[in-house]
């Protein structure tokens, strides 16, 4: 077939550039400038898809974004589901397939659904596939085959996407006559204007019919207007770009397809505009009559577009059915193109429209359609009753009126207004800094579009602070009035036929009646019960008909039914565009320490470890597994010498005359007696008494402290300090600065730690009596200025060496080199976890799980009850007053010494009702190489009283018994760390 339906002349296609493409494996030809849909029609392809539920044959119904039927699966280079054939520009080698059909669109097994259609009314799945419940996995497997249309791509995309922020004075959405007028009027005042349009060439609806402006072809006016706009300073014009969402404070997203950079597939513009003009046009509405979904039945304006813009004859013999006058111009265009127009079926009783010689059946309706894979004839009858007649045709053009594209304005927060004359919703009073113009505003005549566009553009520029005026409107021929009389449905000639309101989801007029009959009175409920408006097209052609039907049945006016909520995006957008370059490692930037490079080049296995830091889990030597490494490192620390990069620990520098007062109010214990040069372990609680952090406070000077926090909660502790300083106690004279990254921190730990420090050389006394546990010193270590503290998270003798970050690497390498004689072992975060579990030290967000208070975790000794107040104190009192049993920190020794229960495993017992209940959970468990068995910490209800008892851990499929012990497994008196 060689484009048998292509007109010999005309159209905006380039006949010098023929293209070859494939549809369902068939090679076909078209021209540059075609869409896939126009090329298919030119080749006489009528059935392009099968409908969602009933698998009815479907054809192309529109010429734009409102298309409901002709979705295709793109294969080959562009692997994409649900592409709109009416919007897809034809390109050489394009490969497209029909969706929702098997084995082919012409012969589809799914058509059995059509035979059984009475079993599948709206909401059938709420009443079926329920019993027997155990068969659900079978039902699910079957039902999944029927869900959705296309197939998601299986391989990762190589395409590049980008995001860009953009500011402008005026954003104009739509480059049709109203939009171009608005952009010119605004831009000429000096305002920076951005004009976006979803077509490849400006002009909007002017492409679809032969209009005239100032005596010239309207498209020539549009091209000149766009060129004039481009010359204005600050003007930005985006083609093939859809404004998809309107958010708060004039923030809009615009998706630009085919940016000028060839490596970019799509770019999202995030636009903040001072003023917005929406000139997005209007979409024609179908009519609701029996079998109105057959291939060959399309919107009247779409047929006109195919004839005029693409030089395609969508059929040879047409019937036009309409409730308004705009379809008469479409009929005239079809006739001029050589299509026989058999009749105009006008539902209005006495239309005053000029038919130009075509027979008009006034006061008639379509009561039936003949033909399944292709419309063959329509059956019409007078609406008042009377004899039927059959009219042979292969094309039906329907016009049920026009709907302004109000989506963006509604997203902006506008309440829509019902326009009685045109039976459609139009924009209401503006809520944000926006306005509408043209057919998006309910003005359908070309002269009105131009005038409104100029006025809106000038008003927008003025509101943005520029001096603007609206130029005179060029002359245009008069457009006849719409004279619309609503006709929400046409009763069928015989029962058992279906009239479709939402084509994409196969929702019929009867389904709307069914929903109403079952008590779903609200338009939002009808939408969800019938799934009308929930397809890829978001109800662009269906919603108003549903509102009209509901209004008719309820006996109210449509505005009383109301609309469903409009939500962005206006058209479907790919995830690639949303992600932009935020993929892979970019999306969560990994924080590093001055030592990360060293870890990576010495066998460190890096992993995500709190506050976005990537830290080494352990350091793997040749032939070792990760577990081997962790066990080796844990043994080394307790028996020899280890070194650990603690740079991610939070550090807050706190100064000021009231610094100590603040610390006293934030921590549970008292710091009044903390001398300069000493540190103290403290607990910081939330106001509700729950653990926020367990950290160490260093006194550096008279009014100078350093708070050291857990690395995972550093930002939270800082935020907490700022909150109290700035809003609760702003009179306190204290100043906090987060200095985490200014210091490199490495902990030298193990029985040999002091030996190493002596070898490296310090200018302060390292003897145990001189430098005690929780002391710290400023001085020199190996020649570098450092702060050294005797604090530990391993429970061994430790010296925490802090140097300015720029010296971190050098210090670490110095220590590593000197420590060689004791086989100094770098220790990773997984090893650190093993060591701290052995000692029963707390980890925030594990034992400090947001529900535990200090007494629960055995840390009552850190609380100074004599203090008048501290954050959390009042809630601890309330916990005592409430007196509920609390989950308390204990140790667990499993009966099987090699079984390590997974973190989080519930501890269970049989409750009063005979069913198993959870009485606690394992917070952290590990195999301990130093105790040579599995150990665990757990929060157990009433745990403090249950030492020595046996409990049951539910670890997945297995139940394990364990003995409750003190939550400490090594050196209970802490002699090693105090040595």
């Amino acid at each position, binding site marked *: 077939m060689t484009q048998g339906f292509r007109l010999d002349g005309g159209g905006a296609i380039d006949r010098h550039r023929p293209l070859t493409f494939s549809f369902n494996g068939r090679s076909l030809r078209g021209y540059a400038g075609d869409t896939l849909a126009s090329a298919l029609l030119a080749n006489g392809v009528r059935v392009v898809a099968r409908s969602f539920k009933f698998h009815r044959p479907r054809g192309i119904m529109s010429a734009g974004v409102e298309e409901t039927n002709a979705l295709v699966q793109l294969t080959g280079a562009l692997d994409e589901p649900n592409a709109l054939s009416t919007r897809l520009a034809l390109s050489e080698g394009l490969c497209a397939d029909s969706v929702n059909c098997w084995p082919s669109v012409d012969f589809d097994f799914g058509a059995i659904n059509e035979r059984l259609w009475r079993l599948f009314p709206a909401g059938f799945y709420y009443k079926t596939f329920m019993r027997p419940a155990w068969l659900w996995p079978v039902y699910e497997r079957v039902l999944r085959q029927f869900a959705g249309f296309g197939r998601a791509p299986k391989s990762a995309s190589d395409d590049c996407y980008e995001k860009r922020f953009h500011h402008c004075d005026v954003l104009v959405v739509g480059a049709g006559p109203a939009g171009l007028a608005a952009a010119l009027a605004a831009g000429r005042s000096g305002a920076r204007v951005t004009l976006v349009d979803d077509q490849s060439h400006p002009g909007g609806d002017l492409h679809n019919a032969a209009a005239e402006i100032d005596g010239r072809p309207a498209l020539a006016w549009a091209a000149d207007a766009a060129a004039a706009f481009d010359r204005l300073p600050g003007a930005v014009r985006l083609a093939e770009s859809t404004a998809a969402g309107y958010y*708060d*404070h004039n923030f809009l997203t615009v998706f630009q397809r085919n940016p000028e950079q060839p490596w970019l597939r799509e770019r999202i513009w995030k636009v903040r505009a001072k003023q917005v003009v929406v000139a997005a046009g209007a979409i024609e509405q179908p009519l609701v009559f029996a079998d109105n979904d057959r291939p060959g039945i399309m919107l009247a304006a779409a047929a006109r577009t195919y004839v005029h813009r693409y030089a395609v004859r969508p059929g040879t013999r047409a019937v036009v059915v309409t409730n308004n006058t705009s379809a008469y111009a479409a009929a005239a265009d079809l006739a001029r193109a050589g299509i026989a127009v058999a009749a105009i079926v006008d539902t209005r009783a006495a239309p005053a429209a000029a038919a130009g010689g075509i027979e008009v059946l006034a006061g008639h309706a379509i009561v039936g359609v003949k033909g399944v894979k292709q419309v063959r004839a329509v059956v019409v009858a007078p609406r008042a009753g009377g004899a039927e007649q059959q009219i042979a045709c292969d094309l039906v053009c329907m016009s049920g009126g026009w709907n302004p594209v109000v989506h963006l304005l509604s997203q902006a*927060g506008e309440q829509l207004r019902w326009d009685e004359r045109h039976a459609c919703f139009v924009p209401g009073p503006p809520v944000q800094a926006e306005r509408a113009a043209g057919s998006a505003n309910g003005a359908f005549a070309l002269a009105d579009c131009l005038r409104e566009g100029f006025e809106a553009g000038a008003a927008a520029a003025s509101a943005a602070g520029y001096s603007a005026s609206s130029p005179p409107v060029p002359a245009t021929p008069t457009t006849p009035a719409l004279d619309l009389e609503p006709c929400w449905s046409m009763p069928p000639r015989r029962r058992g036929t279906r009239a479709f309101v939402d084509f994409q989801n196969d929702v019929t007029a009867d389904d709307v009646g069914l929903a109403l009959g079952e008590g779903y009175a609200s338009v939002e409920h009808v939408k969800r019960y019938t799934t009308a408006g929930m397809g890829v097209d978001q109800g662009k052609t269906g919603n108003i008909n549903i509102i009209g039907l509901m209004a008719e049945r309820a006996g109210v006016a449509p505005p009383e039914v109301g609309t469903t909520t409009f939500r962005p995006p206006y058209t479907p957008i790919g995830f690639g565009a949303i992600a932009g370059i935020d993929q892979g490692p970019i999306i969560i930037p990994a924080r590093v320490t001055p030592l990360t490079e060293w870890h990576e080049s010495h066998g460190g296995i890096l992993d995500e470890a709190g506050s976005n830091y990537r830290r080494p889990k352990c350091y793997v030597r040749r032939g070792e597994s990760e577990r081997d490494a962790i066990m080796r490192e844990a043994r080394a620390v307790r028996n020899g010498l280890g070194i650990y990069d603690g740079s991610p620990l939070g550090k807050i520098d706190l100064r000021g005359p009231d610094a100590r007062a603040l610390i006293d109010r934030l921590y549970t214990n008292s710091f009044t007696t903390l001398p300069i040069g000493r540190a103290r372990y403290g607990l910081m609680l939330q106001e509700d008494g729950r653990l926020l952090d367990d950290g160490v406070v260093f006194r550096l000077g008279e009014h100078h402290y350093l708070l050291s926090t857990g690395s995972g909660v550093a930002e939270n502790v800082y*935020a907490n300090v*700022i*909150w109290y300083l700035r*809003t*609760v106690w702003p009179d306190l004279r204290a100043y906090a600065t987060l200095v985490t990254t200014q210091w490199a921190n490495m902990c030298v730990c193990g029985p040999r730690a002091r030996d190493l420090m002596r070898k490296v050389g310090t200018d302060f006394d390292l003897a145990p009596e001189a430098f005690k546990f929780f002391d710290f010193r400023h001085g020199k270590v190996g020649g570098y200025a450092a702060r050294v503290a005797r604090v530990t998270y391993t429970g061994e003798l430790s010296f925490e060496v802090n140097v300015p970050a720029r010296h971190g690497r050098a210090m670490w390498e110095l220590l590593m080199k000197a420590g060689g004689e004791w086989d100094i072992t770098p220790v990773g975060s997984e090893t650190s976890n093993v060591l701290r579990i052995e000692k029963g030290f707390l980890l925030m967000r594990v034992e400090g799980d947001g529900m535990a208070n200090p007494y629960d975790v055995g840390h009552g000794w850190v609380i100074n009850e004599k203090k008048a107040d501290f954050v959390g104190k*009042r809630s601890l009192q*309330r916990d005592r007053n409430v007196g509920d049993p609390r989950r308390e920190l204990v140790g667990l020794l499993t009966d099987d010494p090699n079984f390590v229960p997974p973190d989080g495993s519930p501890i269970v017992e049989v409750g009063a009702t005979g069913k198993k209940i959870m009485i606690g959970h394992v917070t952290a468990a590990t195999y301990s190489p130093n105790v040579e068995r599995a150990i665990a910490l757990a929060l157990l209800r009433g745990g403090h009283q249950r030492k020595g008892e046996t409990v049951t851990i539910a670890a997945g499929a297995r139940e394990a018994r364990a003995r409750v012990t003190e939550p400490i497994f090594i050196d209970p008196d802490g002699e090693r760390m105090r040595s």
Partner: protein
Amino acid sequence: MLLIPCPHCGLRNEDEFVYGVASTKKRPADPSAVSDAEWADFLYFHDNSKGRVRERWWHARGCQQWFMLDRDTLTHRIFGADAGESA
């Protein structure tokens, strides 16, 4: 994406800020003097007003100051912001 007028930095995008949850109630000066019910009320019960409210925001990724924002919770219209307001 709200456009928030930080009193110190000017208009900035919403994602530079952290909303201050549970922030407009005043912490009792002497918590030991209030009953358990009053304390729980301070901790857990907060107005969720429809309409114009005053609420705290923290410019976490900017000047790191807390300030009060005057906002309509229904329309998101912002009427103004002021700094240096204590609890």
